[in-house]
């Protein structure tokens, strides 16, 4: 084998990232199962925590907003839960997902595989949690006599759109965290602020009118904030018993598709350099 190698067809031989990822789709499923299994292994209540978690949060907020500073609408518990569930799905996916490449660095160092499987499996396991947490929501709705309308059939579509968005943002932040560990702490703070800057605990319609500059700024922020369009995908069918408006749906879809394309493109572009920064 002394002869010079023919021109190296490296690029041609490497399958496109998306094809490679598709080949590893079963791995994503297994990582999701592993995450759920390991997370609840030693806990008595196990998967029940998935449902208790948003419920307990809901109780706290409901007490604050109905007794301490009453600003509430009828059936406020349902209103809150319908906003908290998508918010928690997003926030938890992001916080867990941005660490996922670092957490799995032993594998990244040893086996060649599309690293996107790690953030994506975090989003996947949170999707399972998100889906399961509709059970307590429905129980709450029944208990409070909130009507069940056919608009609820939209929820699977809402879950899909939310998932695309979560996946995109998580991919983007996961790669950023590899290069700058500060991203994790920064995101933690940003998420706390974002909770109040997004219509989770309140609704766009409740804002009314104020003639101050900061209020105009706030409204502008709400108009840009993708969560203003994503949260109604769940809240409109659950609380208002109607489908989200067409413009809301269109903007939500645009944000989801944009986030996913950007997140995937940036992640796969920087992926080969991750190993030098682990």
């Amino acid at each position, binding site marked *: *084998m002394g002869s010079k*190698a*023919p021109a*190296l*067809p*490296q690029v041609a*031989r490497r399958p496109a990232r998306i094809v490679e990822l598709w*080949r*590893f789709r*079963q*791995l994503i499923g*297994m*990582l999701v199962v*592993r995450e759920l*299994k*390991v997370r609840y*292994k030693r806990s008595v209540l196990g998967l029940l925590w998935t449902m208790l978690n948003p419920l307990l949060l809901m109780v706290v907020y409901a007490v604050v907003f109905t007794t301490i500073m009453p600003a509430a609408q009828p059936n406020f518990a349902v209103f809150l839960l319908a906003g908290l569930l998508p918010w928690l799905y997003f926030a938890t996916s992001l916080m867990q997902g941005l660490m996922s490449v670092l957490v799995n660095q*032993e*594998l*990244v*160092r*040893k*086996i*060649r*595989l599309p690293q996107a499987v790690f953030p994506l499996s975090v989003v996947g396991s949170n999707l399972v949690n998100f889906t399961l947490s509709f059970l307590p929501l429905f129980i709450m709705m029944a208990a409070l006599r909130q009507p069940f309308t056919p608009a609820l059939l939209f929820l699977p579509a809402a879950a899909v759109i939310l998932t695309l968005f979560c996946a995109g943002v998580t991919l983007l932040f996961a790669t950023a965290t590899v290069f700058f560990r*500060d991203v994790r702490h920064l995101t933690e703070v940003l998420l706390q602020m974002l909770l109040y800057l997004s219509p989770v605990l309140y609704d766009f319609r409740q804002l009314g009118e104020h003639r101050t500059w900061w209020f105009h700024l706030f409204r502008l922020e709400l108009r840009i904030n993708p969560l203003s369009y994503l949260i109604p995908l769940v809240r409109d069918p659950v609380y208002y018993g109607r489908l989200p408006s067409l413009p809301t749906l269109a903007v939500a879809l645009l944000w989801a598709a944009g986030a996913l394309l950007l997140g995937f493109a940036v992640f796969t572009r920087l992926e*080969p350099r991750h*190993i*030098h920064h682990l």
Partner: protein
Amino acid sequence: MRDGQIILEDVGVGYRIYREKVSTLKEAVANRFRHLRTAEKFWALRHVSLQIAPGEAIALVGHNGSGKSTLLKTVAGVLEPSEGAAVTLGRISPMIELGAGFDPELSGRDNVYLNGALLGFSRKQMSAKFQRIVDFSELGDFIDLPVKNYSSGMYARLGFAIAQDVEPDILIVDEVLAVGDERFQEKCKRRIQDFRSAGVTFVFVSHSLPTALELCPRAAVLHHGRLAFDGPTDAAWERYRELERGPAPGPVFQA
């Protein structure tokens, strides 16, 4: 070019080494990020050209830090070379470290499927292999115990049992034969010989001459990231000994 072929052409893998320690953002700003500019490149591997034909067996020899692991990682596609080009054709069984990817909380059974998926196998494909893997590993009923309760020997046995059943075109083994008892080591060696006769390319990192001679007719010696020798294993070993005896210069930095 066939599956099992490995071509490295003038491969270099460089890391940036920051000489000035900067631990806080404040210092970084105060120095106007000078530490980034004064970074030096450390070449873990440079100007390495190797051609390994399908079915060939080659041993990699070198002192600690000579670049063996970096070379293996480049071949396995985990690292992309910063210079030159590396092409590896076919499925690689990365026995760089046995049991890489085991989740200690999961049972041996779950880990077999997880490990299979990490190597790109579907659940169905792994089901077909499962019994063979358990048999090879000699774990018996322990397969349903969490892996964290395994002894290191059991751990390595399961790791090898999976790696030997993934129909590789290229087998990369990094000193794993040091684990497990002698009888199991013999079994692993026999399995590797099977692979050899089946035409699987074999890349082996070794510190033991007898094992290298037994498994590989050819050896490459790495010395401070350079290819110092490439040829028959016994001659390679002499060269390796020679280099070992010589003065050991520190790592080579180049701006």
